């Protein structure tokens, strides 16, 4: 009987398929990652145990910065245009097409209506270097109220979110809330970060 020759195989593992999957996933994650846009106002939100997600659309965001500047932003671009047109009309300022386009591209802004045309002319590094003072919101000039009103006209389904910084004063937030309440908006969302729930509090 001839000796059976045991053929020795090299321990070869075909990694092509695994590699394919890995890179497919990689592409997917790269494409879905939304990098933080260059924010005009950095906001460090406080944390809470609440775990409700933020509505994805129809959102009006009022941001309050560390130094109590108030910023206003709407998520949908067509709504932004409609709001600006109305507010400009009411306040008697004229804007050209370029300024309109710049406004549409802005996630939020924080300048008074009077300073708006000059602000919308800024571009590139001028724009990112410009320190926006915030929207005036006091009993004498309450421009925030005008913006919110027009935003709600433009999109009646809007929900309002307040995104306050940890260090902003409760006084300013109360003022913003009071402004909203004057328009009979009594439900809004406070944007917060996640925090672990403590153990059952014994109730």
């Amino acid at each position, binding site marked *: 009987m001839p000796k059976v020759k045991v*053929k*020795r*195989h*090299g*321990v*070869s*593992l075909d*990694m*092509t398929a*695994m*590699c394919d999957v*890995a*890179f497919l*996933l*990689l592409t997917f*994650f*790269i494409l*879905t*990652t939304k990098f933080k846009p260059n924010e005009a106002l950095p906001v460090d*939100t*406080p*944390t*809470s*145990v*609440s775990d*409700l*997600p*933020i509505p994805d659309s129809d959102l009006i965001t009022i941001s*309050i910065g560390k130094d109590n500047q108030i910023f206003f932003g709407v998520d949908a671009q067509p709504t932004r245009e409609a709001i600006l047109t109305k507010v400009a009309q009411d306040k008697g300022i004229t804007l050209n097409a370029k300024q309109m386009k710049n406004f549409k591209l802005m996630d939020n802004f924080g300048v008074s209506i009077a300073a708006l045309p000059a602000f919308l002319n800024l571009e590139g590094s001028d724009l990112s270097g410009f320190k926006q003072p915030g929207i005036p919101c006091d009993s004498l000039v309450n421009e925030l109220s005008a913006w919110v009103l027009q935003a709600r006209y433009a999109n009646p389904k809007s929900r309002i*979110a307040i995104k*306050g*910084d*940890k*260090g*902003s*004063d*409760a*006084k*300013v*937030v*109360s003022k913003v*809330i009071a402004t909203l*309440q*004057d328009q*009979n908006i*009594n*439900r*809004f*969302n*406070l*944007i*917060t*970060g*996640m*925090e672990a*729930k*403590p153990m059952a*509090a*014994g*109730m």
Partner: protein
Amino acid sequence: MAEIADDGGGKKGKKKGGKKNSTKVDMTPMVDLGFLLITFFMLTTTMSKPKTMELNMPDKTIEDQKIDVKASQTMTLFLGKDDQVYWFSGITPAECKEKDLLQKTDYSSEGIRKIILEETKKIGYDQEKKLYKIIIVIKACETAKYKNMVDILDEMHITGSKRYAIVGLEEIEKELIKKYEDG
């Protein structure tokens, strides 16, 4: 590691001469890198989702919505500066001159949360309405930060207090808090 060059099959060719190199490329480092990047992107995409907290304020236009607040069922909290909370049971009397009215605590779980739970137990449970009778009045002073406001709303959530209200301070209360904060 994954690829060991298989030269068992190439013996015949070798005899003829001309060493044939394997055309297989070692893909291990590439796969390693791929998975490393995947891990990175997975972790960065899912973690940064902010959450919201819903806040309902009473409708100002409806007058008869106001409910009578009994002093015996009420607890008043003042949010002061430097993360301090001043509190007492009851509502602020028209004349409050005495200095020992308020007690001071902080936002920790051993601080205000414990106090709220104790007060809630003390005031008791309403069998008819199926809720704790306590009403918490929150007053944010001018020196308080927004973080304090969120913290206290969070405590309402954690302790399960359903009846609470955020209201402004009256002049007399402002003076009182100032007295306490100045020492």
